[in-house]
């Protein structure tokens, strides 16, 4: 993917750049808002990682300007202004996701992948498929290899989110935000219990496991052929 990183802090910028390049992406950088806006509107990028507090032109203005000129490239806003309350302002300005500094690289990577996938034209999908696991969104039923799997509503939502991001790492925070719809920090890894129950239902008795734990990052649902 072609990614633009607009960040004035040299350490963060270099770290993000090297990490993304290591992951096989092409990365352009800018160190202030005006340059960032110029590069963003002239080049063609799959994703933009944008710091919120930038010299010259601030991040939220950059996003607003891009959106005003009908540029729909997904933007992930980075900010030292943490917390849920700040997140809302960033998303309202036209950002697609918001990540608080300091962040774990795996969290950034997972969110960028999710953003890139979101723009891929999907059409009104009614059937999600990973390997021999199938989810019918119309009848709200799940089958694996022809066997019906009975899921609780929350388990269904969890599996749906994972399958919509099949092949990508999904972090625990992302699951809490999207499946449970709460921004909060659990004291215990409560998500793990839900995932292992789901795993018991979809993987138990089958040769190939589909639901994988990615250590230090989160979870990924993928069939053998799709695994990186």
């Amino acid at each position, binding site marked *: 993917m072609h990614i633009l990183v607009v960040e004035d802090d040299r*350490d963060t910028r270099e*770290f993000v750049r090297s*990490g993304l390049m*290591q992951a096989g992406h092409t990365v352009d950088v800018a160190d202030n808002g005006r340059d960032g806006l110029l590069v963003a509107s002239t080049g063609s990028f799959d994703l933009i990682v944008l710091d919120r507090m930038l010299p010259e032109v601030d991040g939220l203005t950059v996003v607003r300007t891009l959106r005003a000129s009908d540029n729909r490239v997904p933007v992930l806003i980075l900010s030292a202004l*943490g*917390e*849920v*309350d*700040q997140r*809302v302002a960033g998303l309202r300005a036209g950002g697609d996701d918001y990540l608080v*500094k*300091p*962040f*774990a*690289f*795996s969290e950034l990577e997972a969110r960028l992948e999710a953003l890139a996938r979101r723009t891929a034209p999907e059409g009104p999908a009614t059937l999600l498929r990973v390997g021999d696991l199938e989810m019918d969104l119309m009848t709200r039923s799940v089958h694996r290899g022809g066997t019906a799997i009975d899921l609780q509503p*929350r388990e269904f939502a969890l599996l749906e989110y994972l399958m919509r991001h099949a092949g990508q790492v999904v972090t625990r925070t992302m699951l809490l935000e999207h499946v*449970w719809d*709460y*921004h*909060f*920090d*659990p*004291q*215990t890894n*409560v998500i793990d*219990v*839900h995932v292992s*129950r789901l795993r018991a239902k979809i993987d138990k008795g089958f040769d190939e496991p589909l639901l994988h734990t990615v*250590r*230090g990052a989160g979870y990924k649902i993928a069939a053998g052929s799709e695994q990186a």
Partner: protein
Amino acid sequence: MRRLRQRLGAILRTTTFHLTLSYIALFGISVSLLTLFFYWSTIGLIVRETDATLKSEITGLAEQYLEHGLDRLVQVIAHRIRNDPSGDMLYLFTTRDNQPLAGNLAAYPPATPDEEGWIEFVHRRADGREVPARARVYLLRDGLHLLVGRNIGQLRQLKQTFNRALLIGGGLTFVLAAAGGLLMSGRVLNRISAFTRTTSEIVAGRLDRRLDEHGGGDEFDLLAGHLNVMLDRLEALLETVRHVSDNIAHDLRTPLTRLRNRIELAARDAPDELRGELEASVAEADALLATFTALLRIARIESGSYDAHIEPVDLARIVDDALDLYQGLAQERGVVLAADSEPGCNITGDRNLLFQAIANLIDNALKYTAAGTTVMVTVRREGNADAAPGTVCVTVADSGPGIPSEEYTRVTQRFARLDQSRSLPGSGLGLSLVKAVAERHRGTLEFADNAPGLRVSLRLPA
């Protein structure tokens, strides 16, 4: 009746009452002294002068007798009586056996003289009127008696007038003193009450409140000024402490994240035997970062800089969601996690913060309670249901080891963990965060003995 007595007791205990009483006493004493002085310098003077006149008259008459004999005295007395048409002066001159020789009194009045030889009696005048009189009897040579007296009717009247004035004045004094005392002490105590109100607000956590200074430069302004300076320093000090700890958390977070990310990236290319170790290091760094995040979040909520998204929320719904999230964990630990919610437990608040608070309480309960027991979450409306908004109370009750009651206030302090829980994982910030959330919503966090176990109540105004 008992309530009346209690109210009366409360009034009797007030400083207003005591001050008013002292004021009345002080006022009363000064007025009494003043009255006494007035009496002494008016009526007292007249009495003294009357007595002096009578004494000198007696002395004069006695000299007449000594120098010129009995006949002359009789003549003089007759002359005096003739020259006093008002009949105010009274005379009686008698022989040894009380036979009158001269005078306008028929006989000695039946009265016993006081220590100084004065007698007071009622004198029936020639016109039939009865008047009070004061007289002195003098024993002349040869056993003759001489009485010289005076009609003191006017003096009596003056005394009565004075007494009446004293009575009215006394009553007036009391009323004025009471009113003045109430007014003065009221003014003083109003300011003290204002101080008390403000200080109790400060004690309740509103450190930005200050005592009123009226600008008159009186003792209260002086006191308020000093207290305000003290509060300014206290606030500045607290602010510094908070800043220092927040800055430490903030400044450490960035390099720690960088370290964590380097390890994470290194782990990807590391050989298998090293990768496990590196991934464990990442997990440890994550735990540390979570602590810093929690610390900063508490600081932001407490300082009011957290821009909470306040909206109508249904606490029963939030409890249901939290239960849904923690149900799996509870079953894994063999604990029954159940909820009992009343409908209509709506409040206004930040749903994410409230979820965090309730999740922390459930997390704690699950952590300490033993397998086979129940953790019960109840949501109840409290207070008069229809009229006043009242409160909603979320209670999480477990049957774990509980907390000794003397530790109730300590457990909400940051990093305060009881000795017995040191072996369990956790940052020691969970309850601090709950308390911060409660206070952000003007609510309270209370602990009670669930016998056995702990019962934590989060009370939030609806």
